[in-house]
């Protein structure tokens, strides 16, 4: 329950061209110590290797994470293709960034704004419901799940 008065007293945030802050540079430098990923789950080997060659992809693990079943043959077929994609990213490591302004994200259009907290119910709910693989009014029906993540 946000009071209208309090809300209007606060200027709307805009995605204006960001003034660069020293702190954002520090954060960025921190991030760059981990190659191409902000994940904490980078294997120690990969983290230690720094901006060198990237770890070869572990196909069975990738498939499991994506909930995709791959046959042994398919895995063997895909491995070099995915390796190729990883190598393309690997080429980025060679880019000289010394003189480049740090950025957390790619540039965003100047002037695009946040959304006002105003309700606009979606008009075509029926289409959403129709697109569901299984619907048991009023619930979406899914295979039984019990705490297995």
């Amino acid at each position, binding site marked *: *329950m*946000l*009071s209208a008065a*309090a*809300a209007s*007293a*606060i*200027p*709307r*945030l805009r*995605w*204006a061209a*960001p*003034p660069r*802050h020293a*702190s*954002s540079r520090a*954060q960025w430098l921190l*991030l760059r110590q981990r190659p191409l*990923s*902000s*994940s*904490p*789950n980078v294997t120690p080997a990969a983290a230690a290797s720094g901006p060198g060659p990237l770890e070869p992809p572990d196909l069975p693990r990738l498939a499991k*994470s994506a*909930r995709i079943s791959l046959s042994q043959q398919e895995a063997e077929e895909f491995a070099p293709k995915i390796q190729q994609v990883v190598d393309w990213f690997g080429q980025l490591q060679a880019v000289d960034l010394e003189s480049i302004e740090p950025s*957390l*994200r790619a540039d*965003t259009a100047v002037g*695009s*704004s*946040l*959304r*006002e*907290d*105003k*309700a*606009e*119910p*979606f008009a075509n*709910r029926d289409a*959403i*419901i129709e*697109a569901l693989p299984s619907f*048991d009014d*009023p*619930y*979406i*029906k*899914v*295979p*039984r*799940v*019990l*705490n*297995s*993540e």
Partner: protein
Amino acid sequence: MALPLLRGITTPTLFRANGMFCTTQRPILAHFSANKPESSVRTAAPKSTQQATREGQVVAEQNTQGFEAVIGIETHVQLSTITKAFCSCPYNYGSQPNTTICPTCMGHPGALPVLNAEVVECAVKLGLALNCNISMTSKFDRKQYFYPDLPKGYQISQFDIPIAEKGYVDLDIPLEFGGGHRRFGITRVHMEEDAGKLLHSESGSYSQVDLNRAGVPLLEIVSEPDMRTGIEAAEYGAEIQRVVRYLGVGNGNMQEGSLRCDVNVSVRPIGQSEFGTKVEIKNMNSFSAISRAIDYEISRQILLHKESQADQIVQETRLWDESSQKTFTMRKKEGLADYRYFPEPDLPEVILTTEYIDEIRSSMPELPEAKRRRYENMGLSMQDVIFLANDDNVAHFFDSTLEHGADAKMAANWIMGDIAAYLKDEKLSIHDIKLTPLELSEMIASIKNGIISGKIAKEILVELISKGGTVKSVIEEKDLVQIADPAAIEAMVDQVLTDNPKQLEQYRAGKTKLQGFFAGQVMKASKGKASPVLLNKILGEKLKGDC
């Protein structure tokens, strides 16, 4: 009589659907009871929650010799925005399932999330209230996991650069739990979206999903592992709830799941610097349940340590079961979950300006801690301070009463006594009653000026609470002005003494306790209007005298 417990007394309901627990618990229960720590067995029938919590504290104290518990809490606060975090779907708790949905929150391909400005404002408010550093630039990340209540296959969250971090919260432990002031560290506050609700059909052959809640904005508050007892953890949770309510960013309702606490508990021998293996506990829907669940878990882990079975403590998620007052294994953690976080490509970074943060800072209400310190400086007791600052509506009522010139201690007594009792009996909140702070202050002034007695004031108060009106009109209407004329009271005393010769004789024979009887008779004769001070003075003189 403060605290989490006041609010905690409600019928326990399981957090998600019942079926989920029935099926998983049976075998585990059997397994668990084999090495169940005997000393921590509690009665299954819930007693008064307050009593149960006290016992829990005693149990915890007795069993902790040589060990200390380390507790950290993750709190999810649902924001009371009109719309969801990244789409314009309205959200209202209790809506017909699957009605407030759109392609964005349903995770349809090609739908683009757009951040709700109100979410940023709430995050900054809460971050400031928790004394955090606010990140001028932060970003969203995708946290991947597969579960049917998460239609996109990932949750939009903030990972390495949260909007706020490195803060703290101050609170006062109620006297009945040992008292004292505490400061607990806040690691971070970040913005994320909620998942839908999952229900399990009776037959158990399939599950049902309601995606109304999918995409609703949450703020996750991660505490430092600074708490040591169930009480401290419960008080931390209660303080977060107060802050959320004072700020108006959420309703903080635990039963509806608008405030959810996941607790991490580990135990280590005192003096050891590294932490023991931590266990996560979920499914507590009141602060007293948090306190009891933690104390149970601490006892369980200490017992395993003492029996040299510390290796039985494994990193896992356990559920609190209200009916048996125990925790049970929900799932064992198989290594670290691999969420494969990466920056959310569909959302730009969140850039704040100092002007924006300053505006929010200047619009912040007085927070619970500041209020408590202010009340304490007025000379109120800690019990009064904690009670009044617990609910911002009550605090506001109290503050308004003082603004009309009322004495702080008297106002506190009336609010905590008769008014609180009425609210509790009628299950009302303080802004539901017709009594205004102005009339309360008038009533207190009337007592001070001797116009009415405290006893009459109680009568007037009930009238004002239920029907409204002014103190003046009620006094006149009911002819309740206190009799402060000594001659009138003396006449009544004489009459009572004449009417009760036997008791008078007994009194004079040494049964002086009978003074109370006479006072009661005079008060009755005056219909409660005699000034008690004058009455006692005159009665005492008459009884001692040899008339």
